[in-house]
């Protein structure tokens, strides 16, 4: 197991490097002016342009640019074009809210996806399975912003429920419990919408995994031993089918963070997705580079943790 962990860590380092290179290249290789105010804008003097190029090392050869930008990023010298603050700091501010949103959505996706997938597999081929399968695809096909708005219309028009930001404006809550619940509500609503697609995707994988497991020889042995179908399904088959729960982490995280860009926008939730959208609007390249890098790095971390989790679940890996 130790060798497994070491190998996995080394791989992660390599991938992190590749991620940083890709993040860098997106910005620099995209044709179009690097200046946020446009190449031909007559109001900007050559001097201003020169200072700008200096600050972002634009006159150096590409590999050097890459090294310098990375250094600047980590030492906090890389600053947002918008407000001159170090990008890492700006991202750091948004990190807790982002984690709450995305990890919450991940937890919802994995748990409800598991339940739905098990249900589908238990009744495979019959009416309940066909219905839940179609339902799953409806969830996957649902545009997040659409359902958010429909929900907003219902909640605000008919139920007068606050949905924006992280706390209800204009209401003074008494006590930590109330503040916490308020925050929780504001985070869980967008998290639930984010999770809709995740639940559906996860359920498809769990269902497929269970159906495949049920065809294994040891399931026949379990039946031959005289176990009833429930014991066969929930005790023997289930534990061998939860691998998708772990691979799901690696698959869902990037999708959730992606979806969060729009959802955070709609719910005015102060996470990295919203920061990203604002950065795009303002052509804030440093922030864009940093955001792409940080989000990919977070996904990488998630994958690493997931792989380590494998070792816990599968004795074959653990005892290698």
């Amino acid at each position, binding site marked *: 197991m130790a060798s497994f962990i070491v190998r996995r860590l080394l791989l992660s380092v390599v991938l992190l490097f590749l991620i940083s290179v890709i993040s860098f290249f997106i910005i620099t290789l995209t044709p179009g002016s690097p200046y946020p105010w446009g190449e031909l804008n007559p109001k900007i003097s050559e001097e201003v342009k020169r200072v700008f190029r200096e600050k972002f090392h634009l006159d150096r050869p590409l590999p050097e640019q890459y090294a310098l930008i990375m250094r600047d990023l980590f030492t906090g010298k890389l600053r947002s074009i918008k407000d001159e603050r170090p990008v890492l700091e700006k991202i750091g501010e948004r990190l807790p809210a982002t984690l709450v949103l995305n990890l919450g959505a991940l937890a919802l996706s994995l748990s409800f996806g598991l339940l739905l997938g098990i249900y589908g597999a238990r009744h495979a081929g019959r009416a309940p399975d066909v219905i839940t399968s179609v339902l799953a695809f409806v969830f996957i096909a649902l545009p997040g912003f659409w359902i958010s708005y429909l929900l907003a219309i219902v909640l605000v028009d008919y139920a007068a429920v606050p949905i924006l930001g992280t706390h209800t404006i204009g209401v003074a809550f008494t006590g930590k419990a109330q503040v916490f619940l308020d925050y929780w509500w504001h985070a869980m609503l967008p998290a639930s919408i984010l999770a809709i697609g995740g639940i559906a995707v996860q359920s498809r994988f769990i269902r497929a995994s269970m159906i495949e497991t049920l065809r*294994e*020889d*040891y399931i*026949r*042995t*379990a*039946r*031959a*031993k*005289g*176990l*009833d179908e429930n014991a066969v399904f929930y005790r*023997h088959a289930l*534990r*061998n089918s939860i691998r998708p729960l772990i691979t799901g982490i690696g698959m869902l995280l990037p999708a959730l963070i992606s979806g969060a860009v729009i959802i955070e926008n709609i719910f005015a939730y102060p996470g990295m997705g919203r920061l990203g959208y604002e950065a795009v609007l303002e052509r804030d390249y440093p922030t864009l580079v940093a955001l792409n890098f940080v989000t990919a790095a977070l996904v990488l971390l998630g994958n690493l943790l997931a792989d380590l989790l494998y070792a816990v*679940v*599968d*004795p*074959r890996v653990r*005892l290698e």
Partner: protein
Amino acid sequence: MSKPILQVSDLCIDFVLEDRTIEAVRGASFELAAGETLAIVGESGSGKSVTALALTRLLPVPPAVIKRGEILFDGQNVFTMDAAQLRKLRGGRIAYIFQEPSTSLNPVFTVSSQIAEAIRLHRPDVTDVDAEVIRWLDAVGIVDAAKRMNDYPHQLSGGMQQRVMIAMALACQPDVLVADEPTTALDVTIQAQIMELLASLKEKFGMAVILITHNFGIVSGFASRVLVMYRGKIVEQGLTEEVLRHPQHAYTRALIDCIPRLDSNEKRLKTIDHAALADA
């Protein structure tokens, strides 16, 4: 001979696939007495495994369809048993060991937990299940049973995995042990060991054994009676010695001929000419 423990009459089983139907078993009839050892011999596709799985309704229905026939175990009709009776039958009265021991054990549970599960199911009166597990692992020849019981299947060799399967099957004290090609997936040297083990356990515990194999070679000396199956039909049955010495059916003769002999001068191995047997 006392009343037979197993009576199979006119068993017909079809497999309905999406574009065709295969008649896997065509009118098989035979009996098994308590404590008797019967071998079912035939090639792949002859219907022998299908027949064996049908004994406790282990065939997936669909695609399998029991067209007609009757299987009586200890006088009871297997096809009309309810779910509870069937669960008692499986493992408790008729136990199985399969061809691929490496995939027939659940990889995420320890050896002992899988055996213990069976014991708890069929022998609820046993109080010290762990001790019973060790006892059975010993009985099948696993060295250092107390330590090995906490191993996972993949940590054991093929031969040991099969021994565990045997222990799991016999720990429930069944009346019949069905061994479906128990040695086919194992090394030749291990094959002999497993067959010896089965023979000695049979002596010791007295259960009936149905040995399914394509290899006539391991049949003599082990099984007292033999059935030969070809394309779903039983083409010959009788006492092993009789059948070996005076095979009546052309197919049986061909099968026996295929066994390589130490004392022959033949330069080529014999094969079976199916075309010549077309009317079998």
